């Protein structure tokens, strides 16, 4: 897994979003992604897995398989679920190093940061932070 791989996924997302003329279409796409994301089994929705900083509940689960971090997530907000699914598309099944070094330019390129109000952006940043923290924990286990 290389840095380029992450960038190609990011570029694909940026291109997909560029197809939409209106914010309604972008939201519809995000919501659609959210609806498609698998639901987490109820037993995973614990307080420890809940990400703080979001108005809605977001649960993030990660595991290390053969050197790659696999992320799954769920939320009671379908928009937040769509947003977290974007992050999963980009960051899941990558090495801890790739995750830690990802600068996630795509979020600003598709206008996510500008168009989501501060509290919502904070939630998104909290998700990124948690994904990177998980990656860091796996990295330290590997050493």
């Amino acid at each position, binding site marked *: 897994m290389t840095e380029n791989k992450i960038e190609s996924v990011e570029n694909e997302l940026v291109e997909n979003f560029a197809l939409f003329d209106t*914010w*309604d279409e972008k939201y519809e796409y995000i919501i659609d992604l959210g609806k498609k994301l698998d639901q987490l089994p109820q037993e995973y929705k614990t307080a420890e897995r809940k990400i703080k900083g979001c*108005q809605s509940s977001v649960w993030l689960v990660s595991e290390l398989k053969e050197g790659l971090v696999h992320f799954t997530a769920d939320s009671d907000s379908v928009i*937040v679920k769509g947003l977290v699914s974007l992050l999963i598309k980009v960051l899941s099944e990558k090495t801890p190093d790739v995750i830690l070094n990802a600068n996630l330019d795509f979020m600003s390129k598709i206008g996510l940061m500008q168009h989501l109000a501060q509290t919502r952006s904070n939630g998104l940043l909290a998700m990124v932070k948690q994904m990177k923290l998980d990656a860091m924990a796996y990295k330290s286990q590997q050493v």
Partner: protein
Amino acid sequence: MALDTLLLYDIDKIRKDFPILNERINGKPLVYFDNAATTQKPASVILALKSYYETMNANIHRGIHSLAEKATAEYELTREKVREFINSPASDLIIFTRGVTESVNLVAQSYGRAFLKAGDEVIISTMEHHSNIVPWQMICNEKGAILKVIPINDAGELLMDEYDTLLSSRTKIVSVVHVSNALGTINPVKEIIAKAHEVGAVVMIDGAQAASHSYIDVQDLDADFYALSGHKFYGPTGIGVLYGKRELLDKMPPYMGGGEMIKEVSFAKTTYNDLPYKFEAGTPNIADTIALRKGIEYMEAIGFEAIAEHEHVLLAHATNMLTSFPDVKIIGTANQKVSVCSFTIEGVHPQDIGIILDSEGIAIRTGHHCTQPLMDRFGIPGTARASFALYNTKEEVDQLGKGIEKVLRMAK
């Protein structure tokens, strides 16, 4: 036509007084329904802020020069206007604070710390804002006093029978909200106060949500303390009020020490200033205090009956609109309520409602509204809340209806 000659009023004319209502949000005209969080400001309030800094900025009360005297006079005019607004018997019982939060903390930390003892009881209600919960928890923990909570029914009304059973000779303070920010319920505060007085307790009323909707008469209510936040009734942020009865304020120790609140200071002993200055340490929020008067005058010019009637029409229209959707549930259906509609949509998180409505230029509040125990009571994480003010229109409520259709289309 002068404003005060209108019965119900010319809404187009009113809307022109609020510059922000011309804003477009996400390409759509702003529909501002987050009035319970803060109301928008009329041009007269905005102008007062500007002209204070342009024509009379000076530190008040001690200055000997003309500017200081002018600023002091304007500042004290607001105190007199607030006195009249809430029918306080005297203007020196009006203490300026930053808002209800500071007012509650002042009473808890000054009156509570001086007079609460271990085993005493403080009564609040299930529908309190965190600002009327946490200050009491803090002082109760410190003093070994016990916090008791008046429960509510499913409509969001206080259970007055339960209140009766909570009251006893151990009750020292009752602190309840006049109008619920999350539900819109108007509480029977006059009755609450009378019953507390029978057991010798003092009563604090959080009037944050009441002031924009109705007359307040602290003497008729017989309130011991009454708190206001200026920004909730067309004034600036950062300025609020604590009213207190003289015999209580007189025996309370100062809350903060500093300039302005003293008579004489030596390193051996300090004597404190008279009311209200005893509780106004430091240079106050002069500009916002001066502009607050313009906000009150704006409401007075329209007339409180006309405002209440207008908001009642909006509330009825919104309630009808919301109940027409089978998936929408209104949270807070009290018999007596102000123009606040909290609602949930089956299967849709409140945050998604807020985001999708925002894309239509409609500003509502979503979440727990700083009333987490109340949300727990209803077993929900939060609600979407639309709250209406004197400048809102039925057409805007219809826009909200269309917005909800979009929410259902996209997020269900």
